[in-house]
């Protein structure tokens, strides 16, 4: 699990996060949703240890958290295997070779191991991106907009993989603009807007909270929910 307490972060005059607290349990899938500028990426970057909060705390050290950024963080001139090997070494994995083989198998990219990453499709690059986040077998995995730029089939494969991770006990926290995706895969939803936590609960609880007569669909109701709360 991972717990945050009263996280706050400012960038100049702009308040990116204020008093964000939550707990994500072992094997839980927590979806962070909210409009642009809500603070989703800032929250994930603090959890990943890339940024320091101005105040508040995170219960996990950065090395215990796997991180998959929205834009793939890998070297396009290196091959799939070389990327995995480099980061496995930097993670100080005891058996680098075995770790690389395991990741190639998990991501079904063993046949592309000697291909330069820059020659792969966006979906395959995202697979390697996720594999790099999982190299150290972290108890917590952060995914920033993981399905952005993927076609439906790739998205399906991605979520099967992520669900399997969660089933194996990995706490998965992901951010998304896609409400349907959040509803479908998130066991709990954390709604952020203007750096504040507006909602923390299950999708059915959120449905109840946003219920509004006349709303065509859940997305419309959600927009009304935000508007009612001044965001």
């Amino acid at each position, binding site marked *: 699990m991972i717990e945050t307490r009263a996280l706050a972060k400012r960038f100049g005059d702009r308040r990116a996060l204020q008093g964000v607290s939550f707990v994500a349990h072992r094997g839980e899938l927590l979806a962070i949703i909210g409009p642009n500028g809500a603070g989703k990426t800032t929250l994930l*970057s603090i959890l*990943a*240890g*890339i*940024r320091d909060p101005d105040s508040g705390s995170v219960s996990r*050290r*950065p*090395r215990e958290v796997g*991180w998959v*950024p929205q*834009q*793939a*963080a*890998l*070297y*396009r*001139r*290196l091959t799939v295997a*070389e990327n995995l090997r*480099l*980061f496995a*070494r*930097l*993670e100080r994995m005891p058996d680098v070779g075995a770790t690389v083989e395991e990741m190639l198998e998990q991501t079904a990219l063993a046949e592309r191991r000697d291909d*330069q990453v820059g020659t792969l499709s966006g979906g395959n690059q995202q697979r390697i991106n996720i594999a*790099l986040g999982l190299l150290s077998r972290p108890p917590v995995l952060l995914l920033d907009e993981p399905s952005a730029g993927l076609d439906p089939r790739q998205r399906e494969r991605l979520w099967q993989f992520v669900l399997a991770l969660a089933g194996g006990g990995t706490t998965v926290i992901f951010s998304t603009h896609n409400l349907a995706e959040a509803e479908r895969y998130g066991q709990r939803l954390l709604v952020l807007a203007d750096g504040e936590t507006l909602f923390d609960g299950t999708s059915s609880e959120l449905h109840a909270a946003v219920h509004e007569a006349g709303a065509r669909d859940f997305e419309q109701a959600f927009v009304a929910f935000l508007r009612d709360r001044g965001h």
Partner: protein
Amino acid sequence: MRWLLLKDLQILRRSLLVSVLLVLYPAVIAVLIGFALSRGPEKPRVAFLNEVPPGTPLVVGGTQFDVTGAKSELCARLDCIPVSSEAQARQMVESGDALAALILPPDLIQRLESLGGLNPIQPTVRVLVNEEDPVKAGLVDDRIDSLVTQANLRISKEVSHISANYLTLLTRGGTFNLLGQTLDILGLQNSERILEAVRSELPASSPLGAALDKVIRFARLAGQNLDQAQPLLASIAHPIEVQKEVVAGSPPSLDSFAIAVAATVTLMFVTVLLVAGALALEWEENAYSRLVRGLVRRTWLLAEKVLLGIALSLGVTLLMLAGLSLFVHIEWSRLPAIVAAILAGGAAFAAFGAAIGATAREVRASSLLAFMISLPVAFVSLVESGTVSPGLFDVIKVVRAVFPFHAALDAMSGGLDASGPALGAPLLHLAILLIAYGALARLALRRLV
């Protein structure tokens, strides 16, 4: 750190065009700059037209001048291209085949010989020049002025010697050749003795006594004063003597300086561009944040880039020097000093490149910035004092102090040539710049994700 270094080398290996350009381009530019700075034409090409009839001796005051030897000496300092007519000489100068044309008129010998006689006529030589290029025009003027000055000096010495002989003849007497006849010249001293002898025979009351006394006094005074004139004539032949004293600076040979410039420019471009680009690439690949969130410390990342720059620039610069050694002499016994200069210069340039890369955070922007800063800094650093106003040179001194180029050039010059600058001061300067730019780069990394 070694895995990051390996990663960067793998990426470079796969970017073949970048690697080749990074090595070849600065090496070519460096060699061109180095030799352009230190070399004009060793001997300017001059069309040479000698209209003096062949075999004509040059005798001035009884002394025969070696005309053939003089011509050889002239052409040892110029690249003489013999021509047979003034039209040909003119055409060569107009077309640029020759920088200038030197024409010796047919009556040159006669005029030179007249300097030793009683009716001297000033000898002249003609020079045709093409002044469409002011640099070339200046070069030709300087060379020919220098040669003519030396010729004038030699002739004036001989003419002074001849004049001194005439004075001796006048004061002490002797023989003199004129139109094939030998004449006895009495001389003033002998005249005084004869007149004194005649005066002693005259009666005391003779009216000629007073007049004779005047003539005797004239002969004595003239003889004494003309004797004094001889050293004066010698000093006219060479009135000003120059005593040169070196109070500062220990310049290397021109060849060593050219090589040092070439090596330093290569070192600068390879290191600064490589390190700036390599560091900026971490952001472009979005790998920076993945690296620094617990895998690698920012300082280690910086150190790895600096080490990458030093290692590659050492190899490239040594390779370039090895290539140059096919054409010029390089004192390879000074290899330890050369390597020390390259390492120190490479480290300072690498830190400078890291500061650029950490600031630009984009490979194209960092490459452009590195180029736009490095090239003018290099040119400005090469400007010497005395060629610009003191105020402007103060600004140049600041540029030299703040950027690694001039210190690296001094270190390289000292490494290549034992007569060049001492290594200690530039190495210390480079170490300070390494620390300063390293700190700047580290500060830039701290603020960034």
